[in-house]
């Protein structure tokens, strides 16, 4: 029996989607994704309402969802990250129910254990055959890894693959196979390639970022983890990627060969793989075209599911084998708790993604941040929103000093022995406030607009709506 449905509308009807149900999406097409908007608009046209939308992430391109919230089509949101007009609307209190913010590892856990029950999963597929064997590495809208969609495909009541690149049966390689796919829909285009590979892979030009990155690479060296077999993950922006640059220099000059690089994979990591500085790459998400090419062509570039990446309830997951992770922050408090979800004014502008997962898994978790972010001190008494608990964060590296979590006595000792500028995190806070002045406290209403669910399912903080000034 053919799985091809003549239209998206027919596929939705065939899936049995009803009022009050939950639909899910992955975010591999990032800010170039057409599928979420396309599907939600069709659902609204079908007169279906009260939908919970569970996507791994939302980007500015998903601004049209605000309209579906107004009409009551969407009444609940689950995600790991949210930016753009949708985040703004949620901040302004437009959604009645609080958003459930999870982590990249917490989402598959919730899906597998049934706490996030998906009725219909819509999977944007850069290539598919007529039976729903899918991969993300080929086609006009190729995005590489399909890792975040794998738990959805496995657990959803119905699975609809949406593709703009139908290939002859059987499609291969297979990221998600036909045993889990109910319907296949062919559309003109699932995404805009320029928005899909939007990850910035330029090493920062900001000289302060370079100072921070050099310190961070020195911290990794001083920790004793810089030796053959090192595994490493870093964010794609600013000082994080610059840290990878300086770590690479240290690996080259020390003749060190790493075991794997992980994460959102960028051209920078692909180069390290191809230059023999890593044996393997573990890839849950590709950030640029070089990563997409590499995952297609290089057997040492391994595509993994979100569950294998970071699910804490799995029998094991990759973040547990990670040595070093370098992450950013919008705020970090004197207990080393990190906020990457709201800015200091309380506006939603992100989410954990894999932040809390890698921080807990890695042997060494380094936060890199400018001491002042647009005048605002990065170190605060208490983070506006607690996303990654301080117990899982080892070091904060700024351009004016390195603060070590007091629980890491060993690490503090080795950094001091290597002559690195170690200071108390309270001192960094005072330094920042001396330069910028103490910021006036932002006031909040008592209206909860989001829950922060830690990777293990525990609600560790609530997001409150900022007060209108």
């Amino acid at each position, binding site marked *: 029996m053919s799985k091809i449905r003549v239209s998206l509308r027919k596929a939705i009807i065939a899936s049995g989607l009803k009022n009050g149900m939950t639909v899910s999406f992955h975010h591999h097409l990032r800010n170039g994704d057409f599928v979420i908007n396309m599907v939600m608009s069709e659902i609204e046209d079908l007169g279906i309402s009260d939908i919970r939308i569970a996507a791994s992430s939302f980007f500015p391109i998903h601004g049209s969802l605000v309209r579906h919230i107004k009409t009551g089509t969407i009444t609940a949101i689950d995600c790991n990250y949210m930016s753009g007009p949708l985040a703004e609307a949620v901040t302004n209190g437009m959604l009645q129910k609080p958003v459930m913010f999870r982590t990249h590892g917490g989402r598959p856990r919730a899906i597998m254990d049934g706490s996030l029950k998906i009725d219909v999963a819509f999977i944007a597929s850069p290539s598919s055959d007529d039976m729903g064997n899918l991969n993300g590495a080929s086609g006009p809208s190729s995005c590489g890894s399909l890792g975040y969609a794998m738990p959805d495909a496995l657990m959803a009541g119905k699975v609809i693959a949406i593709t703009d690149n139908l290939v002859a049966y059987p499609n291969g390689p297979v990221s998600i196979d036909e045993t889990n796919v109910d319907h296949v829909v062919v559309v003109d285009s699932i995404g805009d390639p320029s928005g899909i590979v939007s990850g910035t892979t330029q090493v920062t030009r900001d000289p302060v970022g370079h100072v921070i990155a050099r310190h961070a690479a020195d911290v990794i060296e001083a920790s004793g983890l810089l030796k053959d077999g090192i595994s490493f993950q870093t964010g794609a922006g600013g000082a994080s990627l610059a840290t990878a640059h300086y770590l690479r220099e240290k690996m080259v000059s020390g003749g060190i060969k790493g075991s794997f690089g992980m994460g959102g994979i960028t051209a920078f990591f692909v180069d390290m793989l191809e230059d023999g500085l890593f044996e393997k790459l573990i890839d849950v998400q590709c950030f640029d075209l070089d990563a997409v090419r590499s995952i297609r062509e290089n057997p040492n570039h391994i595509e993994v599911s979100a569950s294998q990446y970071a699910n804490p309830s799995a029998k094991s997951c990759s973040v547990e084998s990670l040595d070093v992770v370098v992450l950013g922050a919008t705020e970090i408090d004197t207990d080393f708790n990190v906020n990457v979800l709201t800015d*200091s*004014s309380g506006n939603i502008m992100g989410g954990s993604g894999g932040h809390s997962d890698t921080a807990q898994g890695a042997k060494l978790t380094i936060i890199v941040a400018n001491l*002042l972010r*647009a*005048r*605002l001190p990065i170190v605060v008494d208490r983070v506006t929103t607690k996303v990654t608990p301080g117990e899982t964060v080892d070091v904060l590296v700024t351009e004016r000093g390195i603060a070590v979590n007091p629980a890491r006595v060993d690490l503090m000792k080795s950094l001091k022995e290597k002559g690195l500028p170690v200071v108390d995190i309270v001192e960094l806070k005072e330094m920042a406030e001396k*330069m*910028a*002045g103490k*910021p*006036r406290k*932002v006031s909040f209403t008592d209206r909860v607009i989001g829950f922060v669910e830690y990777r293990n399912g525990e609600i560790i903080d609530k997001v409150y709506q900022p007060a209108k*000034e």
Partner: protein
Amino acid sequence: MGKKNAKAGSLESSDLLVVIEEKEAGEKLEIVMNSIVEKQYGDRIIEIAHEIAALKGMDNVRILIQDRGALDYAIRARIETAIERYERGV
């Protein structure tokens, strides 16, 4: 002849753009400010502007400030320069 005006600074990150415009005779000092850190430092920026304007005896002007997260020293400097330019007539 048009009204006197002058500006200083830029819209680069950590900087600010200050524009000073002459007002109608008899009108009072007016300070208009927007900032990317308005919630946390808006009051402080206005306070500095008032302080310098008073010191330089500027009372018949509108001071427009667009702040991109500048520190106090830069805010002071740009307002001072704008006032000096205004008085020099450049």
